């Protein structure tokens, strides 16, 4: 079990750094899809009381959404917005990778602090969850295009998913479904918003969204 989690952890971190260092949007969406699939597998390896139907449903639903459906929607939006490359992010790609390294160190520190209170949560996954949330937030504030901000939001979602799976052993199914549904709707609503912004502004670059101040 722990070796599988270690593999997920290592590959997952890799996808984060790839997201930080890639300028091609299509590639970013595919990295995100891989990340979604990887972390959807966590409940399969974490629930040591065997593979119940619920766990399989949860993982399967998550893979279908984050690994397949969201990337399709996002790729479609990318071509609609005619947006293939993040040219000049607010923070450059090298600086972004450096941020990633610092964030990793901070996540380790925070996870060490939290570990005593969450004794049954695997340490590497705890650290990965914090790291994902940090990277997602960073992508939202450092990228110029609204579509990349949606990607950032989904990275945060991945982090929260991992965190919820490892800390709360038993959440009611209804709640889990509600949360998946919300993520699902959120992506569509954000997609429609990006579409409208593109149509009105000619591109989805958020540095044009500066009329309202003060």
């Amino acid at each position, binding site marked *: 079990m722990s070796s599988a989690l270690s593999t997920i952890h290592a590959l997952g971190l890799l996808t984060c750094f790839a997201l930080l260092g890639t300028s091609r949007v299509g590639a970013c969406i595919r990295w995100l899809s891989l990340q979604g699939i990887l972390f959807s597998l966590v409940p399969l390896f974490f629930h040591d009381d065997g593979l119940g139907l619920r766990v399989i449903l949860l993982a399967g639903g998550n893979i279908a959404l984050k690994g397949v459906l969201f990337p399709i929607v996002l790729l479609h939006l990318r071509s609609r917005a005619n947006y293939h490359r993040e040219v000049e992010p607010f923070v450059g790609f090298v600086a972004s990778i450096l941020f990633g390294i610092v964030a990793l160190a901070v996540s380790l520190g925070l996870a060490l602090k939290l570990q005593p209170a969450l004794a049954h949560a695997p340490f590497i996954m705890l650290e990965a969850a914090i790291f994902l949330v940090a990277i997602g937030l960073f992508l939202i504030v450092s990228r110029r295009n609204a579509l990349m901000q949606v990607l950032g*939001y989904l990275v945060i979602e991945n982090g929260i998913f991992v*965190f919820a799976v490892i800390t709360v052993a038993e959440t009611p199914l209804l709640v889990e479904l509600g*949360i998946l549904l919300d993520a699902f709707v*959120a992506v569509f609503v954000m997609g429609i*918003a990006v579409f409208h912004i593109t149509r009105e*502004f000619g591109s989805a670059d958020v540095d044009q969204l500066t009329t309202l101040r003060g």
Partner: protein
Amino acid sequence: MQTGHPIVAMLALAVLGAVVCLALRRPRHILAATVIVSALELAFAVYLWVAVLEEGHVTAAEEWFYVDPFSAFHLVVLSLVFLLCSVFAGIYFADETGEHEFGPAVARRFGALWLGSLAAMTLVLLSNNIGIMWVGMEATTLLSAFLISLYPSRSSLEAMWKYLLICSVGIAFAFIGTVFAAASMQSGSGAQAEALFWTRLADPNAHLNPTLIKFAFLFILVGYGTKAGLAPIHSWLPDAHSQAPAPVSAMFSGFLLNTALYCIMRFVPPVRNALGSGFADGLLVFFGALSILVAAGFIVFQRDAKRFLAYSSVEHIGIIALGFGLGPLGSFAALFHMLNHSLSKSLAFFAVGRLGQRFGTHDMATLSGALRGDRLWGLALLGSILSLIGAAPFAIFMSEYQLLRAAVGTEAWVVLVLFLAAASVVFISALRHLIDMAFGDAKSPLVALRQRLPGFVIVMPALAALLLLGLWLPPWLTEAIGRAAAVVGMRT
């Protein structure tokens, strides 16, 4: 225990109403449908409120829905504000022309999203499960985002995108807090964790893990605080309020913010049980005071009437949060203030929206002579803004006075001084604009409006209620608010 049919009926009615709005063809019918649904919701809410005050609480679906005096009070204020806003929407949209024409497509979108938001907020207030509460809160963000950009334009899309993104991230943080709270229950010994009910979380015998519940509350406060508009995470609020159509701004300020604050307050009793009262109360007082100060600073420089009202909402949400942090007396004042603020602020947005239609501007410098130009809505503007800045004898003066007494009672001197200073700044800078807006000479030719529904049906009752509540608080209302305050105001 009595059955919770009204609970289910409230939810079903709002959802059904949203679907019906999608099927209706004429804008007038859609607006009528929203009014009818809101009126029925208010009737159900009052019924529930009475039942809760008699029996202590009402539940449904094996306690997945749970209404106590605190949530019942919020429900009544919610449905009241929604009814007022729906009636005003009928008046307001009838006079929108040009590219803001309220055609069938816009009307259907408005009706469905409007009642959908109502359903989501009702779900938040009725739900006992903190996960479902979160789902409802996220749903309000997603549903109400397109109400801001009901008429897509560059600035309304910008406001909508900021709202959508900032609040989604905020709500994601609230979810991390919810997970921490659930984990704190499981690592404690006594509590059954299979259902994440706040009734179990608030049980004094729950033995929550102190570290985890501390983290939980921090994330909850920042997460839902974003949506509630607490400074310094309020940045979406002025944009969204200034760009949304007036009825939508009124609903945002009048209740959406309260819903988020309600979610925060649900976590306060468990935190007090686990960590003593200092931690949660200190944070509430800090964020409350900060919001009041930040808002007062921004209000001085505002030129746009709707942005002014938006910052005033940040101030008042701060006052309410501050009150909740000041013990039982403060909680009473906070809840009373919430009712007064919801009434005054919706009325103020109505007036500004309506006068904006007549004067063709929301700029406070050109929007002048309202009383001469439009007697009724000018009066509404004068009354509601006087109430908002805390002039006697309006109701907000009374609730702020009670809050001051609570601050004196708990010897929170720094807070007292800061609050008085900020309130004076707001009072003076608002009065400067108000005198000209109400009594000045009209500077531009006025647009004639069709008055399909007479506006006084909402202006007069609202103004009368604000005056009456300022002069005399009926004993039954005192008792009802007191019972609600006792739910969140107990100190351990």
